[in-house]
């Protein structure tokens, strides 16, 4: 095989490939004839091989440029004469009239002539593409060799340019200088306008024309940003849309309410989106949306929100669907939704402030009536306030959920607004009111409720608590109220109390609830003590029929709010006059002290008779009954410890003798205030008038005389003698001032503790940093006043915990 090839020579290439026997003109004539056939859709008779061979030879003969030019010219002529001619026939006067905005044609006529024009153009474009791809097939060799070598656009591309030049950019007529492209844009825009007005148009047809524009470029480089669609049509489309929507927005704002406006705007946006998908190109979606959003929303949102039927109206009337619409619209143009947020916050604070002032008004409305009533009134006001706030909260929660898609930003805004009005400086009672609300529920509200319902109530209270800034103030009130509930056994369910505590623990932390829990612990221990003591007494020996039963609560003094217990506060606990108990009671008291000291040595028990109650069996002399018989009447009187002491005085008194106020006080050593109140309840209150007072009046004076009321009539065997001003009520102004003072004192300690903690760790710190750190440490408990911190700093420096660093705004810790 190799041997045979050793001396091979290359033969000269054959048959005219390199000869000069090419007759360009006649070859071109046959090519041109074939092209005509192609354009008139007779291609199936033509031989590809033959046409290709012609073109191939011409290119090989280096006459590619002539071929290219000829094809180009041919195509140009064809477009200019044949295709342009057919387009001309579509340019009915009707159509042209539109462009000049001459009226007198009906919408239907315009649509028909427009569609005809579009159809014709689409047809011409489709034909052109098909023909040119066939030409490109035949001229493949020219494209690959000549065009690439000479950096010419492929014949197909060139032909597309031709279509643009000869058809789209040609004048409508000799006298009319607008070009076909402008007309096309106009017709499409007009069709779209018809659709906006509610007509049905041929979307598919328009889409084809749009594709044509997208396939053609304004320049000859086919750069992406030069598509005719973008540079010509889209621009005009956006402009006309802008004008359209601007006018529409004006009309709508004038003629309809905010809700309808929002609904309309939304449907317009969707409509445009659909239009881009079905009629135009997806790439326009974003742009047209920007236009619609700018015109219908951005520029109008403020007006819209502030409209009479705007956000405020929607909130007040619970138009949640409309709120959702307006939220949605705002979200489209502003990710912070600031307009809607602002409106919502404003309205919320307004409503909250209204609730606040209602509560204040309610609490003051009846200031003319009796003190007791007044206090009740305030409690009612407190509960109403809490409930109103909760209703408000529910309302906004619902709006937030249903209208604002649970948007986090708005939740923050709403929370802030709630905190704003709840902690408003003009309304200092929120902590107390919330505590009272819980108190009320613990005592009465939860009776007969299921666990789930109770949980809901507790949860509501916690929700409100979250908004409160001065948690320490709340703690103080809660402790006070809880203390009363526990000692007076007012609480319906211990379980629920504990549940509440654990909820607060989750919300506010261990520190907050530690003391509250200790109170519960004391109660539990006391129960054990009581029963232990009872066993102890029984073990002592024979049962004494006259023995007095003792139920005792031993309270740790620091845990419990002493001001509530001691009446006057712990500072004068030692000075507090010891009440003189009757001998029998005194004996028990001693007995218990003995018992207690055996168990816990070194502890001092302080007796608080003002907090106790006693059951006393009383026998009243015979009085005639209805049936005429005489009958001794026995009553079991449930009275306060003090009252018990007072009553026992009368045991030893002969009938019809009296004791004066001063005598009673001297014998019992009961504090003046308590004595007055107890005597009032025993001698003044009409249902429990066990004593008789002379003279009969409401006030108790030092020289009043008291008798045992033998003629007392009671309808029940058991009678409870209440003591005036018992139970949890809204504080009087004096009490509040006191509470606040106490609160400030304990805050002072907190602040000092925080400062010392920080400084111990940092040793030296600038004033600014110290302030920030202190504030952040205390944030969980309350919001301290800067002025207060400064005072504490002064005090700490005085006491040489800190010193000022010379020449700098900073402090040093002194160990």
């Amino acid at each position, binding site marked *: 095989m190799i041997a045979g090839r050793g001396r*091979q020579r290359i033969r000269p*290439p054959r048959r005219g490939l390199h000869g000069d026997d090419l007759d360009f003109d006649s070859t071109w004539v046959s090519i041109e004839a074939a092209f005509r056939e192609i354009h008139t859709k007779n291609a199936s008779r033509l031989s590809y*091989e033959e046409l290709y061979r012609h073109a191939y030879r011409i290119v090989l003969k280096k006459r590619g440029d002539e071929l290219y030019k000829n094809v180009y010219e041919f195509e140009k002529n064809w477009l200019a004469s044949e295709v342009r001619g057919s387009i001309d026939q579509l340019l009915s006067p009707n159509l042209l009239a539109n462009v000049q905005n001459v009226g007198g044609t009906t919408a239907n006529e315009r649509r028909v002539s427009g569609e005809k024009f579009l159809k014709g153009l689409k047809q011409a474009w489709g034909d052109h593409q098909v023909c040119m791809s066939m030409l490109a097939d035949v001229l493949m060799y020219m494209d690959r060799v000549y065009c690439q070598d000479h950096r010419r656009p492929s014949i197909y591309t060139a032909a597309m340019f031709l279509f643009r030049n000869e058809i789209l950019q040609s004048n409508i007529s000799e006298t009319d200088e607008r070009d076909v492209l402008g007309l096309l844009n106009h017709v499409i825009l007009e069709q779209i306008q018809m659709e906006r007005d509610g007509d049905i148009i041929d979307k598919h047809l328009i889409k084809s024309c749009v594709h044509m524009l997208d396939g053609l470029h304004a320049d000859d480089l086919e750069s992406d940003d030069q598509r005719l669609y973008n540079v010509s049509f889209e621009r005009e489309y956006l402009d006309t849309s802008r004008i359209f929507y601007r006018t529409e927005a004006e009309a709508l704002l004038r003629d309809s309410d905010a809700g309808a406006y929002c609904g309309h705007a939304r449907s317009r946006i969707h409509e445009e989106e659909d239009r881009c998908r079905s009629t135009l190109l997806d790439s326009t979606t974003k742009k047209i949306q920007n236009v619609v959003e700018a015109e219908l929303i951005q520029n109008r949102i403020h007006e819209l929100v502030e409209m009479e039927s705007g956000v405020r109206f929607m909130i007040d009337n619970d138009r949640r669907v409309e709120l959702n619409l307006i939220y949605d619209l705002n979200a489209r143009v502003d990710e912070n939704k600031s307009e809607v947020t602002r409106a919502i916050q404003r309205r919320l604070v307004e409503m909250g402030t209204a609730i606040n002032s209602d509560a204040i008004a309610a609490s003051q409305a009846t200031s003319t009536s009796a003190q007791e009533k007044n206090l009740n009134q305030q409690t009612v006001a407190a509960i109403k306030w809490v409930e109103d706030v909760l209703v408000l909260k529910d309302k906004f929660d619902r709006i937030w959920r249903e209208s604002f898609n649970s948007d986090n930003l708005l939740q923050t805004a709403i929370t802030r607004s709630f905190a704003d009005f709840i902690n408003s400086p003009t309304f200092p009672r929120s902590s107390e009111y919330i505590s009272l609300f819980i108190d009320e529920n613990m005592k009465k509200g939860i009776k007969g409720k299921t666990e789930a319902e109770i949980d809901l109530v507790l949860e509501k209270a916690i929700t409100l608590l979250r908004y409160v800034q001065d948690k320490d103030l709340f703690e103080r009130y809660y402790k006070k109220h809880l203390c009363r509930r526990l000692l007076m056994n007012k609480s319906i369910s211990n379980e629920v109390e504990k549940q509440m505590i654990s909820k607060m623990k989750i919300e506010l932390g261990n520190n907050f609830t530690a003391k509250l829990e200790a109170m519960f612990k004391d109660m539990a221990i006391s129960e054990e003590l009581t029963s232990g003591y009872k066993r102890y007494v029984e073990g002592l020996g024979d049962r004494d029929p006259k023995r007095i039963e003792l139920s005792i609560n031993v309270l740790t003094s620091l845990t419990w709010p002493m001001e509530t217990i001691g009446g006057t506060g712990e500072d004068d606990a030692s000075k507090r006059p010891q009440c003189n108990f009757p001998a029998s009671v005194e004996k028990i008291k001693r007995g218990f002290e003995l018992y207690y000291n055996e168990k816990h040595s070194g502890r001092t028990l302080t007796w608080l008779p003002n907090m106790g109650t006693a059951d006393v069996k009383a026998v009243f002399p015979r009085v005639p009954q209805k049936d005429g018989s005489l009958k001794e009447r026995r009553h079991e009187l449930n009275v306060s410890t003090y009252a018990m002491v007072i009553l026992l005085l009368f045991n030893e008194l002969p009938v019809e003798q009296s004791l004066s106020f001063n005598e009673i006080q001297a014998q019992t050593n009961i504090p003046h205030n308590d004595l007055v109140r107890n005597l009032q309840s025993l001698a003044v209150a009409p249902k429990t008038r066990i004593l008789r007072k002379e003279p009969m009046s409401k006030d108790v004076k030092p020289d009043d005389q008291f008798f045992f009321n033998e003629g007392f009539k009671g309808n029940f065997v058991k009678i409870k003698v209440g003591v005036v001003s018992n139970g949890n009520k809204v504080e009087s102004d004096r009490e509040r001032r006191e509470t606040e003072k106490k609160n400030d004192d304990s805050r002072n300690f907190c602040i000092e503790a925080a400062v010392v903690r920080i400084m111990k760790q940092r040793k030296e710190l600038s004033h600014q940093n110290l302030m920030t750190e202190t504030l952040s440490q205390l944030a969980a408990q309350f919001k301290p006043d800067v002025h207060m911190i400064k005072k504490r700093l002064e005090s700490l420096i005085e006491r040489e915990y800190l010193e000022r660093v010379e020449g700098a705004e900073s402090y040093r810790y002194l160990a």
Partner: protein
Amino acid sequence: MDVKRKHEIEAALASEAQAVSSGRLKEDSPLDTSVAFLDFCEACRRGDLKAAQELLQAGVNVNARDQHDYTPLILASLCGHYEVIQLLLENGALCERDTFQGERALYNALNDRIRNLLLSYDYAKSTNPLQPLAAHVSSLLTRPEPKTADITITAYDQSFRLHKFLLAARSPYFAKKLAEAPNTASWKLPHAIPAEALRVALQYLYFSEVSLRNVLHGLSDDEELVVLNGVDKIGRQLEMERMFEDITEVSDRRLLRQKRAEELVRGRDQLELWFRDNVLKNKMIVDTDQVDGIRWDRDNSIFADVLLRADDDDGAKSTIYGVHKAMLLRSEYFLTMFNSPFREAQDARYLHVVNLDCTPQVLETILTFIYTERSDFGLDIAVDVLFAADQLFIEKLKQRAALIISSLGNGSTSTVEAENPRGETDAEEAIDVYEIIRAGWDTRVQRLEEFCARYIAYRLEHYIDEAEFAELVQESAKRVTARQETDTVELIDDIRWYLSERFRLRFEDTHFDEMMDENPKADREALADAVKDLDISDKTAGAVRTLDGEIAGDEFAQDAINYQILLGKIDALLENLGLDA
């Protein structure tokens, strides 16, 4: 650069040797001590393109090794013959990273240019030489347009549009069946065989790389069993015994590659056999004036669906080949033709005759390439094949033709410069270099232009004064201006480069450059003057003379002066042509 460490290579080598000795792996580079192979190695060592090309065509194993464990590629790489390396790689020489022989070729590469060439042919990027053919045949299974299928096979609920000639070539069973009933248009498989199994078998039959693991992926055990049984059954029915084994075993990459390569060669051989027995044997030679009367029915025994016609040089006889569109689609020309709405793509009662502008011999070469990927033709038709391949857009064949021209075109003169330092040539040249370079330009094959520039540079003495050479330079200059606005004449640049290469080879060690610089400018002008009245004819004397007839002191001096003379002549030529380069 990721280079394996020595111990890693040794470990790989040991495991490879084990695999080979246990028969799991076929050796990539078997020992070959035949004379032909040793000649081949020698050619690679010396950089003799022509000899290497001829031996390759004679079928020497390009990946064998000699008794010193050298493969031809390592030798060529070591000795720095860029063109030879290219030739070897194009003919399937393996250069795979992570193999012993592959790494050796890389280690030994004389320079970075060669190293980069080798790396670019790493197995991961290059392909089996038969891969283009395989890829085309595989694509026929899924190609929707144009329609080329002529039989529908249905299994269960799926039907496959297939090609009878491929079925007959690949499966003895189909060959028999179709021979009995060539008109069969559809065939139904028994229901027992699942469509999945048939699909696998057909993919295999159509040269796709099939992995049973992929096919079975996601099937339950039962389904798996059914498919496996089906594949086995089909394999036996179609008498493709190796199929089941070939697609089931998937182990390491090299084993997979070897199996694949074997299967491709076997498949190609089947296709080639069928092609020769049917297409070539059924060609019709008729008088050209009667060729229009030829009618082939759509149903014919070789399943042809189009006829190709080529006329003899003298135009008296025409040869007609019945061929298959499915294969012709490998040419972009035919692809466009059969996709177009023109006559050739229309269905007609009789097969269309497509005229091709070449001799039957060239057409047969093209068809052989299209059907079998073979391209071992002689220099005599190489230029014709080049043009035809260009016209039909068969890029690969074009490159092959150019390769053949540039490797065989030096005639009996060795391309090894050392053996012909003085530019002496045979009286009879194998090629017309003007023709070749123009063909290279016309068909845009850079390789030919380079080849010719080198060819001329090494024989510049013969061409520099010919009028046609001046014409050629002018043409080259024109090509340049047409492409871009620069002042270089590509051909002259190339020639100068090769000329310097030709002389520098011998001057490199003797600081020729410095010597050149020392030459006073006046001397050069004097030389140029001397060139003008140069007369080569008196270079017949036995003494050592320079080109201008002066007697040079020794051969070294002769070369130096000759180089100057030739450069001067080029300048003069350019000046005459009014070119500034």
